[in-house]
């Protein structure tokens, strides 16, 4: 989620200062600055989209370029969340229909969802934000108890889509229409449609517009093919074996040659992440899910001055271990070609980059 409109000049003027506060994890300074802008008459939506979402993108880039550690990125994000909450407290609860917003299970990028929640509240909706990684069971019992008009689900990374699908189906089975948002559904929302959601919004502004159009027509049924079923199940089962085999190939070294992984905690985390993206690509019968991830990974490695040799070795190892998985192998071959050519990242790379920002 990022602002695509010309930001308010008053916001632009204070952005460096705000960024510095995020860098120090100085919650008080960041909150005071944001609230000061609101008090000065800058629309709250402008502060949320222009200041918070804008700087959050910069936070992600700094992590990606290796300028900030994971810990610093988390700290800055946590401060931004506090800022959103503080700005949100200035907005009276809406009186229009009730919208419940939740990040799908396994999805920990709460900030975009939190911002959207506040923008919807500003548009007059009564919004409940359930937070990051909401288990499907918790969401469903909430829907039965509160009976909201719409449930909005946020997904930043396509790797969570198989789990997202289960949650979406469960929510629709309560008779509640599902609005999907976040780059995890594809920058053009194609995976949202494939999972059979009632509506998809690329950003908060579009979400507001879609909610004005309620009731929505009946959604198209989901198109997650049964043909992917056995291969998907097989990949889930082989997850551990694949990671173990790839670990042996790399002799325990990460792509960066450091004990810390590229993405987060360690090598196993990185490899599990890669297998999970592959699994999601198979689930959606769309290699772009996987090649998009690889594009993002290549960018990341490039930013840290590392090559893609390790990544390519991993792909080759996966390919060898998956001889009875034709679709997964197709994804892997495409990915290998992409890494070799250093090709422009395919569709989805932007999505991943944005989500991780």
């Amino acid at each position: 989620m990022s602002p695509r409109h010309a930001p308010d000049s008053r916001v632009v003027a204070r952005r460096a200062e705000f960024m510095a506060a995020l860098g120090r994890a100085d919650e008080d300074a960041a909150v005071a600055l944001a609230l000061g802008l609101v008090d000065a008459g800058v629309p709250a939506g402008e502060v949320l989209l222009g200041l918070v979402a804008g700087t959050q993108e910069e936070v992600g880039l700094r992590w990606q370029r290796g300028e900030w550690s994971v810990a610093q990125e988390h700290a800055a994000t946590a401060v931004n969340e506090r800022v959103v909450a503080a700005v949100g407290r200035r907005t009276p609860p809406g009186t229009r229909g009730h919208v419940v917003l939740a990040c799908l299970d396994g999805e920990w990028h709460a900030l975009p969802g939190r911002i959207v929640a506040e923008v919807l509240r500003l548009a007059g909706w009564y919004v409940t934000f359930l937070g990051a990684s909401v288990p499907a069971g918790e969401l469903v019992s909430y829907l039965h108890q509160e009976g909201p008009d719409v449930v909005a689900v946020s997904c930043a990374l396509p790797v969570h889509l198989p789990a997202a699908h289960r949650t979406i189906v469960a929510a629709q089975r309560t008779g509640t229409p599902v609005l999907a948002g976040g780059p995890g559904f594809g920058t053009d929302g194609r995976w949202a449609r494939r999972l059979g959601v009632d509506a998809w919004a690329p950003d908060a502004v579009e979400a507001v517009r879609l909610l004005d159009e309620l009731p929505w027509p009946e959604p198209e049924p989901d198109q997650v093919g049964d043909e992917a079923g056995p291969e998907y199940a097989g990949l889930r089962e082989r997850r551990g074996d694949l990671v173990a085999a790839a670990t042996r190939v790399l002799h325990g070294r990460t792509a960066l040659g450091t004990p810390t992984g590229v993405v987060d905690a360690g090598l196993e985390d990185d490899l599990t992440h890669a297998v999970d993206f592959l699994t999601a690509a198979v689930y959606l019968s769309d290699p772009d899910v996987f090649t998009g991830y690889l594009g993002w990974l290549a960018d990341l490695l490039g930013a840290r001055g590392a090559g893609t040799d390790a990544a390519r070795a991993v792909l080759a190892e996966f390919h060898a271990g998956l001889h009875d998985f034709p679709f997964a192998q197709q994804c892997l071959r495409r990915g290998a070609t992409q890494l070799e050519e250093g090709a422009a990242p395919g569709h989805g790379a932007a999505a991943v980059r944005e989500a991780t920002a």
Partner: protein
Amino acid sequence: MPARRDRHGRDPGGKGIIRSKDPDAGRMTTGIGGGSVDRPSAPVAPAPAAPAPPAGPSLADRLLDGADFGVLAIDERGLVRRANAAARRLLGVREAELLPAPVAAALVAGPEHGSDTGPDTGPDDGPVELDLGGRALRARRQPLPGRWVAWHVEDVTEHRRRLDNLLAERARSRFLAAASRRLGLSLHPGRTARAVVELASSELADLAVVVLPVRGGVSEWYACDADRVAHSGRTDVADMPAELRDALAGIATGPRPLLADDLAGQPWVAGAPAAAALISLPGNGVPAGALVLLRHETDSAAAPGVDKALTEEFAQRSGLALAAASLYAGQAGTAAVLKRSLQQPELPRVPGMAFGAAYRPAEEGLLIGGDFYDVHVGPEGSAMFVLGDVCGKGVHAAVSTGQLRQTVQALRRLDQDPVSLLRLLNETMLEAADPEADPGFATVVLGTATPLPDGGLELELAGGGHLPPLVVRRDGVEEVEIGGMLVGAVPSARFAARTVRLAPGEACVLYTDGVSEARGGVDGRETLGETRLAGLLAGAHVMPAPAIAERVEQHTTRWLASGAHDDIAVLVVQAPLPLPAPSDPAPAEERP
């Protein structure tokens, strides 16, 4: 030029046809074998040695008159030249007269007869359906020579009625099946009511309204029109028509019409409906609501509730769904109130220290479990915090955590020392325990935090048999082994304490075994373990406390191979992050 002959060898234009003087009687005297007509290919041509024709109607006339279907021949001027008994009965035509206007209109109106197609083109056009005098007829046109036309007319009234009934029955089953599916979805009374009105307005009425039972003098209502535009609101019982009150009270339950006077002033009425019907929705003993169906058309066939059986069946199913939703809402409401006291608390903000927490019960839909944490603001700027794990899972364990938290809340007013508090807690739990029940022991870490002048924090941690907390230092992560015995298991249990000093940014992480014993990883059977957890926390001193707690929860759930897990609780106590001078370089360029 020889006269054209039709299939039966008659010469339509010629003098071969000799009509009787009494066309109404239909006794045609053109006899088979009579006259001078030559008919070499006539299918009914008798042998030359055929007996003399009988007196009166010919055999062909008798055969035609005996047929169930009508046959008539019309000449180029529209005059009926021949019509058998069935044609005369079905169409009311007479021979030697023009077609009656409605018949002519119906037959000519068929799209394939818009223009005269000539006598010999298209020997068999598609049949025309027409309604005459309340009967459904199907007519097939047959061109005859000399621009004559024959019509073969079949009475399909009975057939059509059966087909209509079948289709209507199918539509009814489809509607009821869709209704059952849709009504079974939600357990929320409002959403269920909305499903009822959306379904009803799609099939049974132009506007459907559900009024829910009266609670405290007011009723909630939900309305939906045929364009799927929904409204809802509340109405005072005093403003309701008496009929509606009776239906909601279960006094008058059957379908009944509503008069315009009854509807006047009702908030859900739009415009002036032409007809309205009311039916009560049967629930558990008392009605689960009342359904009002309104039509804007005066057409009697469209009057609401015309399909009485369908409406009643729909009302039955709607009533059941509403009753179930109402029952669930009642139970869920009660549970929510009880659960609220057992849910994990909002963390207080205490100057000089920061708290963060994460909580994920094993039964995720339940929101409560056997793990717990709590933070209380203490005297002189201090705070008391506790994290623990009661044996067991689910609701039973959650109830124990509630009692335990309340006990701590009360006891901390008597004694501030963590070890003394654990001792008191142990005695209280043992006294309160039901001797019949299983022992309800718990593992607990209880501590106090006091801000230090240098921005650091001093923690006094008392252990009650719980996992050792991890301290996130600037240069690594260390385990704080405290010791101590289970709380609530044995009298005079011994508890130990440790003092820990946190420099600014450093944090103490308390967690339950749902974290360290999370089973998963690469092979799906490995436990997460303290070592891996410590690795995860290395360098986390720059993160704010809530982000540290979330990081632990995030990695634990990602570690889990399957969805199943034990209760997970994390509580982080942190000395406030140091705020360096604002020397952080500004972003090189402002990105719009």
